[in-house]
């Protein structure tokens, strides 16, 4: 299970053509650490990392803020049609993304948003996805009513209750949503593939795919492809180790109850 990771790291430290020595050396001698600065500076992967981070951050903020707002409305506020709207929202999770893909693409094309980061960020300011609303709503439902009642008697508005009671008490669930959202945008491939078409706008995922296909830079780059893969995987592994419990709870919670 772990061997592919070692193989990945080992190849990423090899020099040009050393990857094609048989039998393969597990520990490259000498290790070519310069592969990493090379992909980040000589090849434009530094730029691709910045692009990916920009998109991820802009989408993630919207996702976390609007998903918690909507989840709060569906969990606590009473308004006509609430449960029907929530039900339909949940049902949309069953719809394959391919069905809405083309009209949404045409919409963004009409708005002249193609080759900008807007199609990859703005939609996440609209509730951030049924899955996250559902997850947060389930969590909000477990928060005792008494706190809010006391706040309402003191004259608190829904906005105050949301920011002062619900959000602070839901940090574990919001952490899960943040982590999952980060992964979603960091890993996204189809979105950037469709909406971004010039080299200066690429994300890491797209840059990696272009590099894997191997034509653009006109030389064999297996060792550099592996270095980029390591750069792409690393942040995720780090997040996983720091937030292991929240992470596993998230998978399990959404797996069994989702």
């Amino acid at each position, binding site marked *: 299970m772990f061997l*592919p990771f070692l193989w990945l790291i080992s190849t990423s430290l090899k020099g040009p053509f050393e990857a094609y020595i048989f*039998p393969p050396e597990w520990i490259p001698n000498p290790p070519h650490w310069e592969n990493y600065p090379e992909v980040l500076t000589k090849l434009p992967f530094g730029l691709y990392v910045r692009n990916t981070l920009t998109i991820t951050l802009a989408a993630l903020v919207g996702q976390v803020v609007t998903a918690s707002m909507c989840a709060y*409305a569906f969990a606590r*506020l009473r*308004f*006509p049609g609430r449960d029907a709207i929530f039900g339909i929202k949940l049902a949309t999770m069953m719809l394959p993304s391919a069905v809405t893909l083309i009209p949404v693409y045409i919409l963004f094309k009409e708005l002249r948003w193609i080759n900008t980061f807007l199609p990859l960020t703005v939609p996440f300011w609209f509730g951030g996805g049924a899955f996250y609303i559902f997850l947060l709503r389930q969590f909000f439902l477990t928060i005792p009513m008494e706190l809010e*009642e006391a706040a309402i008697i003191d004259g608190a508005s829904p906005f105050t209750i949301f920011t002062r009671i619900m959000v602070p008490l839901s940090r574990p669930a919001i952490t899960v949503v943040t982590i999952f959202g980060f992964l979603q945008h960091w890993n996204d491939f189809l979105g950037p593939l469709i909406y971004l078409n010039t080299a200066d706008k690429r994300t890491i995922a797209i840059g990696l795919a272009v590099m894997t296909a191997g034509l653009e830079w006109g030389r064999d780059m297996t060792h550099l492809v592996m270095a980029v*893969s390591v750069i792409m995987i690393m942040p995720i592994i780090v997040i996983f180790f720091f937030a*292991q419990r929240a992470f596993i709870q998230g998978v399990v919670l959404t797996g069994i109850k989702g």
Partner: protein
Amino acid sequence: MQHSSATAAHRPFYARLGFQQALSGYLFAAPAILGMLFFTAAPVAASFYLSFTNYDIVSPPAFTGLQNYVKLATTDTLFRHSLTVTLYYSALSIPLSLVTAFLVAMLMNQKVRGIVVYRVVWYLPALVPVAANAALWRWMLNRDFGLINFPLIALGFAPPGWLVESSLTVPALVMVHLWGIGNSVLIYLAGLQGVPQHLYEAAEIDGSNWWHKFRHVTIPMMSAIIFFNLIMGIIGSFQVFTLAYVIFTPGGGTGTAGPENAALFYVFYLYRNAFQYFKMGYAAALAWVLFLIILALTILMFRFQNRWVYYEGGKPR
């Protein structure tokens, strides 16, 4: 259902704030409501209409009736081919991953020292982004220098060309998929830890061996979770795209999808129609057919679940 009774008890309290609260309710839910209108409801309607048209983005859509669907069903051999590839992949990967993930979860459920380390190691591959996964496995599966073939070459066998022989393409992708089943393992593991111990104890008192316990306690108690993973497996495997795209697309994104199009998955073909050939109407029809196939399979699975799925609380939700 604890929730509904709780709010019911509080209704008089909330009723006093009726109008104002309804207003803030709509305000708070506005992103989701607008999002559904802009990014789901309108696109679904538009895509349904487009599926009956000929539309190349440049000129306005021309209504052609059922022509797209007729073409799918009769003359388009690539459609049939991509569907076959997808079905073949699903038929291999769904049962294999259900069984493998279950067995791994059983192993990870042992009370052994250091088991947490094993769990993390099994889970890590699930974290690898699909683009990096594809890049890694394209190299792992390289016929002459990849790690997978290394033992075979060392023993003097002719190395199989995973990515160059059309008959090995789908099995190779199934192998890649199996490497990353950590999420299903985790879900099974949570389920296994929820099986009440007293059931095993009762079975032991009745003289059951491990097989009886597995067959008559573990499997029935886990059937709802197996069912969940089955449904997720169907939904996921019918939408495979990125893995095949990155592994098999030479620069520029055109050409065949793998040797003799052996990796032309359904969504891959859909993507090509939409964004390489700009046949938007035809691609919309493909999307609707995909939706109907997934829907039909899911309904079928739900129909048959009474035969084998056991729910603790009686009837399923």
